[in-house]
């Protein structure tokens, strides 16, 4: 398996692991849900089944009750013969029929119950049949007819008797006399009726008996059935309970298993996540370290470039500067020739260094473009003059043209434009022998004041192989390795040109053929400039303004060359100068001396120029109008300007500088200074005590930052330590231990000076000096006594001051 795949797998392994575990968790959860649902459904359905027998029991009980009601209705009717009492009977038996049918349908699945139900149904039918019979017997018309017939016969007999005897008593008596003939018949009829009635009653009794038997049977059957059903239900409930318990048990087991699995899964996920987080954290730390390393590396690179600037440019500048100075003074032709070679070589070296520095800045996006008005014609002329001789040496005709429609003044960065043209013309001239180099500038107008400057560089030189055209803009590259050996150069020129053009939103295009020549076309957008805005340079010869001759200048630079160069130029200009090699010495010197102007190298060992300047301004209170500070540096003044200004910088001079630049800077600063009112000298000279005062707490308050408690503490400390010190001093004097006396005097000197107790300070100083320097112990005793008296005065003053603070 190949390495990238393994890396990718390793990178994704955590996602895969987590993903798989999540899938597993989802499956487990789904299973849990499904099992819970299934088992709960089972339990619910078992509960549902259990309810059915209860319903059947209810039906049976209802039927039983209905039968009782029906019987009651029948009995009531037999007693009352009221039809209203029989009406519920018919309704009830109709319901019973429905309920029996319902019960039958509920017992369809149970054969035994079905048989029982059928038996009950038959018995009920039989019962109803008997009830109906009973009802029929109670409605029997035979007895009624007989009774009616008998009544009629009795009525006719009475009517015949009424005609003779008109009272109830007469009729009763007459019935025995006159109706004697029909009596036997009536008696017969009555007997018949009685017989019939007896028969009916017997029938009734039989029916009643049968009914009772049937009812009893039905009841028994019902009780049997109910008992059976209850038993059956009880069994069923037990079975279902057992089954539900089993299901619940299974469910619990499943749930426990799944819960344990879920817990284990969670622990696993947690473990993986923790491991992942720890790994991620260690990667983060490693990344941060790598980032720090990379930043450190970048800083080292920048530092390296700065070192090149400082360490190489400074001596080269000195070489170039001194050579120029000697060239001014020397009249020997041979020496001058050699000096010119040295100067041109050092200038060339500077050019290479500039290329490298520019490249570094371009790479780090630190290069800033200027925006000034400039003459394009002047630039072209300068470049032409620069290479005219070199081209002639190569037997090459150098020419240039500027189209008439191109604005004479443009607005942009002339230095970078010149750099581009110089680089391209330099290449053309370098690689063309016995040919021609022509550069042509035209413009393409855009809207408003914007134009596109089109520059074409055409030569008949060695050309570039078409296959290598795409690599000529790469860093440190030349088309052929042999080119470097033969023609020299860093291989940075075209790379810088391309970057500079792109920085200005332009384009560059190259067309070339080996041994035929090269055409380079550049397009850079510019704004149209104004002629009156073009800055003019200081013309030779230099005339030193008179007001500069009386100046006293301090030069702070660790580079001896620079200091010497400064000194040489300033001496020639009759300006007094003093040099120190670092910030620390500058500060010490400034404690006792004043200068009109200070040149401060920004990069020095120990404390740098910015910190030294800040200290001069903030702690020593030497203001800008009183002593302007000009920063000197080999690095260009970029975005740090505000930082330098804040530190107290008055002006900036970039190394290497020319005499003109130096003069212009000094003149600008001095002229500017004259416009500012210089504050009173006494204001800043706070470290010297007023002799009229016994103490001066200005320093202490300055340090305290307004913290009165701190001042109080310090004064208390002074009183106690100096008091004790003086006592020790007195003891040491008494015992004539002079070394100890000097030590003690020295020990308490600093605080005295700090609180401005200068009289006490001077006395103690004299004690130390007498012993250490003069080896004279004679005045020590009296000086000690004076010191103690002086301390008493100081102490009193300090105590008063402390009281005020309280």
């Amino acid at each position, binding site marked *: 398996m190949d390495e990238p795949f393994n890396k990718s797998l390793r990178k994704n392994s955590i996602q895969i692991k987590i993903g798989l575990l999540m899938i597993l968790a989802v499956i487990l959860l789904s299973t849990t849900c499904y099992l819970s649902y299934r088992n709960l459904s089972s339990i619910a359905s078992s509960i549902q089944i259990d309810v059915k027998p209860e319903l059947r029991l209810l039906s049976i009980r209802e039927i039983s009750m209905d039968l009782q009601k029906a019987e009651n209705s029948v009995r009531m009717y037999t007693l009352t013969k009221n039809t209203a009492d029989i009406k519920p009977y018919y309704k009830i038996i109709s319901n019973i029929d429905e309920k029996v049918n319902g019960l039958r349908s509920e017992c369809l699945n149970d054969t035994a119950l079905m048989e029982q139900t059928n038996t009950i149904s038959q018995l009920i039918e039989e019962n109803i049949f008997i009830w109906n019979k009973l009802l029929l017997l109670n409605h029997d018309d035979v007895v009624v007819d007989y009774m009616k017939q008998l009544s009629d016969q009795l009525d006719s007999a009475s009517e015949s008797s009424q005609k003779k005897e008109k009272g109830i008593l007469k009729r009763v008596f007459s019935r025995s006399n006159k109706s004697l003939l029909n009596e036997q018949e009536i008696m017969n009829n009555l007997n018949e009726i009685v017989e019939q009635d007896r028969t009916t009653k017997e029938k009734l009794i039989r029916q009643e008996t049968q009914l009772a038997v049937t009812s009893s049977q039905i009841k028994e059957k019902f009780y049997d059935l109910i008992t059976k059903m209850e038993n059956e239900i009880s069994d069923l409930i037990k079975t279902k309970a057992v089954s539900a318990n089993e299901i619940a048990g299974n469910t619990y087991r499943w749930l426990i298993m799944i819960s344990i699995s879920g817990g284990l899964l969670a622990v696993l996920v947690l473990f993986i996540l923790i491991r992942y987080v720890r790994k991620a954290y260690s990667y983060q730390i490693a990344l941060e370290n790598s980032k720090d390393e990379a930043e450190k590396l970048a*800083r080292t690179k*920048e*530092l390296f470039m*700065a070192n090149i600037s400082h360490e190489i440019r400074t001596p080269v500048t000195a070489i170039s500067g001194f050579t120029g100075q000697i060239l001014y003074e020397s009249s020997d032709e041979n020496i001058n020739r050699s000096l010119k070679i040295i100067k041109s070589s050092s200038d060339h070296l500077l050019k290479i260094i500039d290329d490298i520095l520019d490249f570094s800045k371009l790479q780090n996006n630190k290069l800033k473009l200027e925006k000034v008005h400039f003459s394009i014609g002047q630039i072209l002329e300068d470049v032409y003059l620069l290479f005219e001789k070199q081209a002639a040496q190569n037997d090459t005709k150098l020419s240039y043209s500027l189209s008439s429609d191109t604005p004479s003044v443009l607005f942009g960065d002339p230095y970078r434009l010149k750099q581009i043209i110089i680089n391209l013309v330099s290449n053309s001239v370098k690689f063309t022998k016995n040919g021609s180099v022509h550069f042509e500038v035209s413009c393409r107008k855009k809207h408003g004041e914007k134009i596109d400057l089109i520059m074409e560089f055409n030569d008949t030189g060695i050309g570039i192989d078409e296959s290598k055209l795409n690599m000529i803009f790469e860093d440190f590259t030349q088309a052929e390795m042999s080119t470097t050996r033969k023609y020299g150069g860093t291989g940075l020129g075209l790379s810088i040109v391309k970057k500079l053009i792109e920085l200005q939103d332009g384009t560059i295009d190259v067309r070339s053929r080996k041994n035929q020549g090269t055409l380079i076309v550049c397009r850079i957008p510019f704004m149209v400039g104004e002629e009156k805005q073009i800055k003019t340079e200081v013309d030779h010869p230099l005339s030193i303004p008179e007001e500069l001759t009386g100046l006293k200048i301090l030069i702070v630079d660790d580079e001896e060359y620079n200091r010497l160069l400064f000194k040489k130029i300033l001496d020639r200009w009759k300006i007094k100068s003093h040099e120190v090699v670092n910030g*620390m010495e500058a*500060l*010490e010197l400034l*404690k006792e001396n004043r200068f009109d102007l200070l040149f401060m190298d*920004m*990069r020095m060992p*120990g*404390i*740098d*120029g*910015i*910190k030294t300047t800040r*200290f001069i301004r903030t*702690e*020593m209170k030497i203001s800008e109008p009183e002593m302007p500070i000009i920063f000197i*540096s080999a*690095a260009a003044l970029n975005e*740090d300007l505000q930082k330098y200004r804040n530190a107290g910088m008055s002006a900036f001079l970039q190394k290497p500088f020319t005499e003109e630049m130096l003069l212009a800077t000094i003149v600008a600063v001095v002229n500017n200074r004259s416009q500012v009112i210089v504050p009173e000298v006494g204001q800043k000279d*706070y*470290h010297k005590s007023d002799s009229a005062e016994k103490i001066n707490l200005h*320093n202490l308050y*300055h*340090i305290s*930052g307004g913290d009165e408690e*701190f001042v109080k*503490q*310090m004064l208390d*400390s*002074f009183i106690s*330590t*100096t008091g004790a*010190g003086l006592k020790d001093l007195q003891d040491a004097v008494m015992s004539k231990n002079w*070394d100890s006396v000097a*030590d003690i005097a*020295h*020990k*308490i*000197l*600093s*605080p005295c*000076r*700090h609180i401005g107790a200068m009289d006490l300070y001077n006395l103690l100083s004299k004690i130390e000096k007498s012993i250490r320097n003069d080896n004279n112990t004679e005045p020590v005793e009296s000086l000690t006594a004076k010191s103690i008296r002086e301390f008493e005065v100081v102490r009193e003053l300090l105590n008063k001051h402390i009281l005020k603070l309280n």
Partner: protein
Amino acid sequence: MKKVINVLVIDDNEYYNKLLSDAIKKSISTSLPDSKYKLVLHSFTDANEYIRKIKSEEIKCNDGIVFIDYYLGNGINAAHIIKLLKDYSCDTMVVLLSQSNTIKEKSKLVNCDYFVVKDSLAPALCCLYLKQYVENKYSIALD
């Protein structure tokens, strides 16, 4: 975890010791609060105690800056301490403090990095050197 830089003030004068220590303490909290290093201030009025702590390695002498008075009492001076630091191969920056104006000459004798005359500007100068020392620990000014 921040790397520790020991800032040592060795001056037998309690007043000046306190004055300097306080100025440094304020400088640490105001000018160097976001430093990559943890600055720990130790003050000694007794040089012997400092020597004892160096010898017993109670105080690591690497990565530190020492503000030291020339005369330390009891016959000890800065030269003794600097020699001790050299004997223990300590990588420390030494700022020599002295009352005397001949400190420049003394500083050459005792091989210190900086010297400061004990005047009113001394505390501010010490703070300046401390700041520069801390900055130089991880950065060198590019100008």
